[in-house]
Every structure is written in C-alpha cells, then in structure tokens.
C-alpha cells in the first residue's frame, strides 16, 4: 500500500480540526493549532521570502489572522491546513512584492535555515508522524508531475509571478505556460482525492 492509499484509508491520519474551538476564543486550541502547523507555514514563508525575519513577521500575521477570522473557515471548502497555507502564502507573496527581497532570497535562506536546528519544535509526536507520512505521500504525488509543469507552478506559487512573467522567465510562449500549469494543476487535483 502506498502512502497516499494509506492516508486515504487510515482515519488516524486526519487530525481533529481545531479551528471551531479557536473561533470560540479557546487560547489552548489556538496554541495547539500553532504547534501543529507553524513549522509547515514557517517553511513555506522562508521558501517564499528567503529570510527568517520576514518569515517570522508574516507567520505572526498569519496566526493573528487565523485567530481573528477562524469563524470564516468553512470545512466544506477545504481543509484546515489548506486554509492556513492560503493565508500564509497570500501574505507572504504580498510581503515579497512590497519589499522586493527576491534578489537576496536564496543566499539568506541557505544561511538562516541552518540556524533553526536549535529551536523548539512543539509539534506533538502524533502530529509529527501524521505530517511526516503526509509529506511522503505529497512528494510522491508531486514527483509524478513533469519537471516543466512543476517548474511553472512553483514560479507562480512561491514567487508570485504572473503567467506572462513566467513565460518570460522560461522563454516559452504564454499559451505553452498556461497549458503546462493547467495540466499540472489538474494532476494535483486528481491526486488530492487521496488526501481527503
């Protein structure tokens, strides 16, 4: 049984949603929410922004937004982690565009990530195991994407580039880029069924 299939069949891998309790003002639930997802969101923000200082600021903004807007979360529309990721990614891209940190991103990320090994990881053992298994499954799904499709999607998702900017960066016609992204997203959407 592959990881995706395991995720689909094992109910223990779907953690209890914390956002309803957070919406009710439960600070403990909010702290649990932070412990469960902060490492994932922080990694995403470092990937987008390329430096830890900006990533920490946007991580704080993301959780404050989650705290004040938890009532807006609709489980029918998507998962808890996807909701948080969408907030973090959106704010990260806004910060990236406003501060124009693109040029320093790779160097700083490489340097600063090396410092984080001493930080406290409060993610519970169960959550860590779940997230680790999910990550393996996600990687399996993403590995099925052709490089060209994945590259176009990553430029849009992590760097906030528009279709035309991606076409320019890759020296490809706009139509080709749109088709690649559309095909890539379709495959990801198909694989998504395995994670629900």
């Amino acid at each position, binding site marked *: 049984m592959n990881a995706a299939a395991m995720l689909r069949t094992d109910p223990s891998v779907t953690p209890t949603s914390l956002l309803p309790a957070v919406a009710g*003002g439960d*600070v403990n639930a*909010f*702290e649990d929410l*932070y*412990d469960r997802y*902060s*490492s*994932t*969101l*922080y*990694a*995403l923000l*470092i*990937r987008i922004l390329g430096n830890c200082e900006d*990533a*920490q600021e946007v*991580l*704080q903004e993301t*959780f*404050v937004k989650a*705290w*004040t807007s938890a009532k807006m979360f609709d489980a029918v*529309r*998507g*998962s808890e*982690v*996807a909701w948080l990721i969408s907030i973090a*990614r959106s704010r990260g*891209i806004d910060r990236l565009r406003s501060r124009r940190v693109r040029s320093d991103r790779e160097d700083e990320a490489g340097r600063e990530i090396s410092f*984080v090994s001493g*930080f*406290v*990881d*409060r*993610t519970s053992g169960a959550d860590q195991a779940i*997230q680790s298994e*999910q*990550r393996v499954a*996600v*990687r399996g*799904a*993403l590995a099925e994407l052709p490089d060209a499709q994945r590259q176009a*999607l*990553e430029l*849009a*998702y*992590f760097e906030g*580039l*528009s*279709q035309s900017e991606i076409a320019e960066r890759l020296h490809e016609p706009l139509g080709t880029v*749109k088709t690649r*992204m*559309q095909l890539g*997203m*379709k495959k*990801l*959407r198909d*694989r*998504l069924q395995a994670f629900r």
Partner: protein
Amino acid sequence: MNHEEFETIAALDAVGAATAGETRSLAAHAESCDACRRARDEYAEAATLLARELDPVPPPAEVRERIAGIAESSNVIEAEHRFNPWWLAIAATLFLALWGWREIGIRVARERIATQQAEIRGLSEEKNRLAAQNEKLASIASAETRTIALAGQEMSPSASARVFLDPTRRRAIVFFYNMPSNPTDKSYQLWIIRGDQPKPQSAGVFDVTASGSATISIDNLPVMTEIRALAVTMEPRGGADQPTEKKFYVMGGMS
C-alpha cells in the same frame, strides 16, 4: 465563457497565476455554479500540496510566545468590551480626547522648544562674532596700540593699508584698501620683515573684495623690536613659504 474555461481559470487562480479580470469573472460565476465553485475549492486545496511537500522548519520559541500573548490579550480586551458599562465607554472616549489634546500640546511645545533652541544657537553665534569684533576693536583702541601705514607700490600705486599693532598682546589687525583684485589662482600674502632673521616671515594669506578691501588679524607677532617692515606680495593660491616675487603691492616700515 463555458464551465471548462472557468475550470482552467480556477486551476491558474489556485497558484495565483490568473489575471485580476479572470479571478473576478470566476468569483462572479462561482456564486451561481456549484460545479465551478467545487472545482475552484479543489484546485485551491491541491495547490497547497506544493507547500505541504516542504520540510518543516520550527520557528523560534519567541514567535509562539508573541502570538499566544496576542491571542490572550485580545481575549481580555474582548471580555472587557462585553462587560463594559456605558459610563466606562464615555470615560474611555473622554480619556482618548484628553490624551489626544495632550499629545497636540506636547507637539506644539516641542516645536516651540526647537524654534527657541535655534534662536539660542543663532544668538550664541552672533555673540561669538561680536566678541571677536570687540577683541579686534580693543586692539585698535588700546593706548599702547601703534599704527603703521603701508603705501601702494609700483604694482598698485593707489593701494594702501593700515596696521593696528598691539605690542602687549603681540597681535595686529591690518585693513587693506584699493588693492587690485587677485585672480582666482592667486592669493595676497602679508610678510613680516624681521631684523633678527634674514628671510621674511609669513603673517597670513588673504583675498580682497570687489572693492579691493580686506581685513586680517595676526596673532603671535614677533616682539616689536624685531619687526622692521610689513609688505604684501601676490602668490600662488594658498600662499608660499617665501615670496616668489620681488614686486610688492603695499609696503611700510616701523618708524
């Protein structure tokens, strides 16, 4: 636009690659189309797989403390809002108004202080300037002050200068009149011709105004008995160690 086209937009929108117009038209359409709304939500969820693949990086502990602190304090504020009696709201409004008034007062006072400090600085500079002038006048007005007239020479017959020399303070002020304008690459240089030394000693470098006048002060003069004469030459800008020309513009000796 058909459903398939909206689905394409949804795929691009999920990674932020749809145009603003496409995103708006998708949002409007999804309001009334369950299938496209579902597709949009599924694509949005699918895009997050790109983030979920990354190796997690634990943030520093202080970020957690800060965020938890914000949540706790906002709960306290919310609780206070829930139970605030009407008079507390009025008191808060009054407090804010007074606080704002106080802030404005402080700002006005700060601006006034800054203006006064600038005036004090200006007055202090003026005082220093006047003190320097008074000192010069004291040199001129002293009973012991000696006056030496320097006469125009062949280079500038109409030029002249008057030296007020205070032997006690070993200081002098020299006023020059009707001197020819010095070129920009040249300066006038005043020399003291001494009885105890074979070479002249520089007493200062100066430029003249458009009307040909100038004033210079000389400190640490040689003792009176050693001064034989004073003379001015034109030298390269900044002056020279010794006169480079033998032609004087003004010159005069001790009587």
